[in-house]
């Protein structure tokens, strides 16, 4: 099994230096692997302060890890040769959250599409370039004649975001990092954008890392999930298991707080008390101060990930009877890998029964 991209024990501290007091630990001992044999969709879910945005920037090489490494096809992103780095820049593309900010208001939207074509020499002639651009626009469900030649403010947020997805496709990437791609888009337009991403995965074999705070959309389009809490992984694994039977107390709290649109009110019971502002530098499990099941050992050291089932792992001392997951084996809890080894597992929503989320 070869890995496409991997974060190994990455810790990122911002604003550090001589005075630790001002340092923020954005990510602590974070590892994730995306394998290259089978394109997957992995969701990284977390709330504000969870470090999910840092994950995106790290995997793109825009930010240097304070500790640990980010490896692309086995090579450290920070030290790779220029030719490899250029290949990395092509193979890993990103879709940002804000569909307004990513456009230079001076240019028409064509600019974000023509720039990579010329910089990466994707077409030999102008006609070829035009054909390529029209092709990717149609692939995301946009009509070139209605989109090209317009200025950003003339398109809706949803259309702008879809142009960004099209842009990501131009370079035939192997991995797309989608950082909150639909949170600033209207509800009625979200499904088609997420559907495009899923289509990319199924039809073009592109792996997706979908970073979001919205557990519901994460559940809908991904197979694997990583739940982040304040810079550390709380729980990871098959999205069906994690969402239907959450094991980590934080995941349980998260799911019970999601307002579901149904006839019944499902917000149950009283909420847990809100945490006071945390001082940094606290040791132990990050959730201990809000956790109804916290015990003294929780305050001492960060719990490792325990593999409680073939397709899931939880970082909680409640499950310490299960074997601890070795690093670099994170990918083994993701269903894709399991399917390769054991054949179709028969679990609902497994990749073998490729379901389409209503494109």
């Amino acid at each position, binding site marked *: 099994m070869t890995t496409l991209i991997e974060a190994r024990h990455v810790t990122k501290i911002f604003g550090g230096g001589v005075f630790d007091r001002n340092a923020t630990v954005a990510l602590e001992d974070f590892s994730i692997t995306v394998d290259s044999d089978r394109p997957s969709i992995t969701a990284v879910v977390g709330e504000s302060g969870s470090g999910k945005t840092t994950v995106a920037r790290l995997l*793109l090489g*825009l930010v240097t890890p304070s500790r640990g490494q980010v490896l692309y096809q086995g090579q450290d992103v920070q030290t790779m040769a220029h030719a490899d780095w*250029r290949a990395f*820049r092509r193979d890993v*593309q*990103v879709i*940002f959250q*804000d569909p*307004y*900010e*990513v*456009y*230079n*208001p*001076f*240019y028409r939207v064509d600019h*974000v599409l023509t*720039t*990579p074509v010329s*910089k*990466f020499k994707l077409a030999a002639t102008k006609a070829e370039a035009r054909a390529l651009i029209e092709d990717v626009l149609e692939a995301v469900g946009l009509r070139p004649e209605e989109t090209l030649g317009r*200025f950003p*403010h*003339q398109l*809706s947020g949803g259309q702008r975001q879809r142009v960004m997805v099209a842009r990501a496709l131009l370079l035939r990437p192997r991995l797309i990092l989608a950082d909150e791609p639909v949170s600033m888009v209207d509800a009625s337009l979200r499904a088609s954008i997420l559907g495009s991403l899923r289509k990319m995965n199924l039809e073009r074999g592109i792996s997706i890392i979908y970073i979001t705070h919205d557990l519901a959309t994460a559940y809908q389009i991904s197979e694997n999930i990583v739940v982040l809490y304040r810079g550390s992984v709380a729980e990871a694994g098959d999205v069906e298991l994690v969402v239907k039977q959450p094991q980590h107390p934080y995941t349980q709290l998260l799911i019970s707080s999601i307002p579901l649109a149904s006839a019944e009110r499902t917000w149950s019971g009283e909420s847990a008390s809100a945490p006071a502002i945390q001082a940094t530098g606290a040791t132990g499990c990050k959730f201990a101060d809000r956790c109804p099941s916290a015990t003294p050992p929780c305050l001492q050291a960060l719990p490792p990930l325990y593999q409680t089932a073939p397709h899931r792992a939880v970082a909680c001392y409640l499950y310490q009877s299960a074997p601890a997951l070795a690093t670099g084996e994170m990918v083994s809890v993701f269903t894709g890998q399991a399917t390769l080894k054991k054949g179709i597992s028969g679990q609902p929503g497994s990749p073998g029964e490729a379901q389409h989320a209503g494109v």
Partner: protein
Amino acid sequence: MGEGTTPPGPIPEAARPGKPAAALRYVRRNPSLVVGILLLLTLVLFVGIGHFVVDTSKSRPLSAPVLQPPSPEYPFGTDRQGRDLLAVMVAGTPLTLRIGFIAGLLGVGVGSILAFVSAYYRGAVDTVIRGIADIGLTVPGLLVLIIIAVSIKEGLTVDQMAIIVASLAWLNPTRTIRAQVLSLRERGYVEVARLSGMSGPEIIVKELMPNLLPYLAATLVNAVSNAILASIGLEVLGLGPIESPTLGMTLYWVNYNAALINGWWWWWTAPIVIILIVFLGLFFLTVGLDEIANPRLRRTV
């Protein structure tokens, strides 16, 4: 999402600078710009037509009877050295303006390059450039210019004046443009450009500069205005190009010959009126351009 003042839905095109029709609509809403342009246009016409109508060789001394008050033959009168003042104004105004433009252009040109490099690359380069600019700004500019002008042994030409003034004109533009670039460089589209494979200089020229054009224009007009002021200041002190009939030199002669006390009002009225028109024109132009460049409006784009 509908706040109190912003209408929901796509932004009307009129608010977007850069397209010709929209620009015209803007001008109508921007009276200062129009007034400024008109004033400057008046001067240009004055000089342009003047060069055909008036014999500019009469701007040299001993071309006309001395100290004549305005008459049909000499509409602006003459001065103590026998210069036809109308010819002096027609010949001298473009000289003064030229000093201003050259110095202003050089100042903003050099200033922008330094500002873009400094703000985009940050780090040591930024520290050095910013340090020099900050130190330079604390030194009294006029003093430096006087020292430089005095040390030039031979007679000064108009272009040399321009370069002397330009030597200090880049300081302020560097700082102000740098501040603008600093905020722009954090925008999402800069990151996208980087990820699309654009290099640093490309990003500066293609992504950042177009968005700063209105601001750069306003800064340029401001720099020109300051440069003209500085050059007139030096000239009045007698440190300018003695042979040339620039506006400032005329005022020097006015002072030297005590024209005020002697009641030769026509001698100092003409240059002062023209100087007023120059500065008012540039001022209104700056205000007009400022309105275009103002971030409050930029937000609607």
